[in-house]
């Protein structure tokens, strides 16, 4: 199956690969997986106030999964948490011209964003309670 140029671009030079300190109070870590293909995706956000100032990802999976998470980190940087939560997998499908069999990769990326935001919010709540 041929990948679109945009997928190949993200695959060959993925943006924001790496890790943030998952123990930091400002960092939210999302981990999601797609068992049927064995893909696993980690997406982390660094938050100041309500704004995502940095994002990193590490994905083990196919080209489309890597491209979807790479694009996701690009899109959420600079956005508020609420804005990031509005990103839909369909936008990723459109931007990367993903074929129907690869739609689950974009779903994974959307879930990863939500998972990272949820992790950050839970952390913030537990820190508040701890005070």
């Amino acid at each position, binding site marked *: 199956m041929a990948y679109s140029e945009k997928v190949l671009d993200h695959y060959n030079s993925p943006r924001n690969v790496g890790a943030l300190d998952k123990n930091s109070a400002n960092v939210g870590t999302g*981990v999601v*997986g797609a068992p*049927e293909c064995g893909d696993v995706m980690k997406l982390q956000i660094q938050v100041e106030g309500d704004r995502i100032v940095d994002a990193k990802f590490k994905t*083990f999976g196919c080209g489309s999964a890597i491209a979807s998470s790479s694009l996701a980190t690009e899109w959420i940087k600079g956005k508020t948490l609420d804005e990031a939560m509005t990103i839909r997998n369909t936008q990723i499908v459109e931007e990367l011209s993903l074929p129907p069999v690869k739609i689950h990769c974009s779903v994974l990326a959307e879930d990863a964003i939500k998972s990272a935001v949820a992790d950050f919010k839970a952390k913030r709540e537990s820190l508040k309670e701890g005070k």
Partner: protein
Amino acid sequence: MSVCRACQAPLETPLGCSKCGALFTPPPGLSPFEIMGLERQAHVDSGALQKRLTRLARIVHPDFFSDSDQPTRQLAERHSAELNRAFEILSDPVQRAEWIVHDLGAPSERDSTPVPRAFLMQVLEWNELLDAAQAPSASAADMEAVRGLSTQLDRDHSVVLQQLLASLDPVPARAAPALRGARELLNQLRYLDRARERAAQCFAARGLETRGAARHID
């Protein structure tokens, strides 16, 4: 248990009758349990299963139909193939569990059945370790780490498999919540198998034997 349409003897398999030798054309989509004439069950005695295969194979063996008309000969061949396929599935504990879970209407692997976050974190760690070992810069220490990982994966696989079979014994009711848990364990086995395959590739790339990695242990 149903009986033979031709001679009224009890049937051991819907494929044919052991008493009068009649072959039947059962409805399509039978489960491997149905084909082998067994109740759905998580734990299967492999010796008993083998014996059952031998006995049932005799009913549908094409050699016994060499004098029959062509449609009957073809039916015997199809039934033999189906019987062997059912045996293969039931011999493999993971495929067997997959069938039970599927048969009872559990969520499919495509539904987002959660895999625990801690487990996914582990999957990430395995993959990072495997990436390091597959990189051109891989060191002997990296390969040693993969060896350790491989042992751990084999152990985890057998633990999760035992949990899975225990969760299906006795077989849960249709659409029972327990099936969701079983699906989650099947998902974990997928990840474990995938990592074991990658570990085996690491060894193969270096000409090392794989110590039977990626084989199922019942």
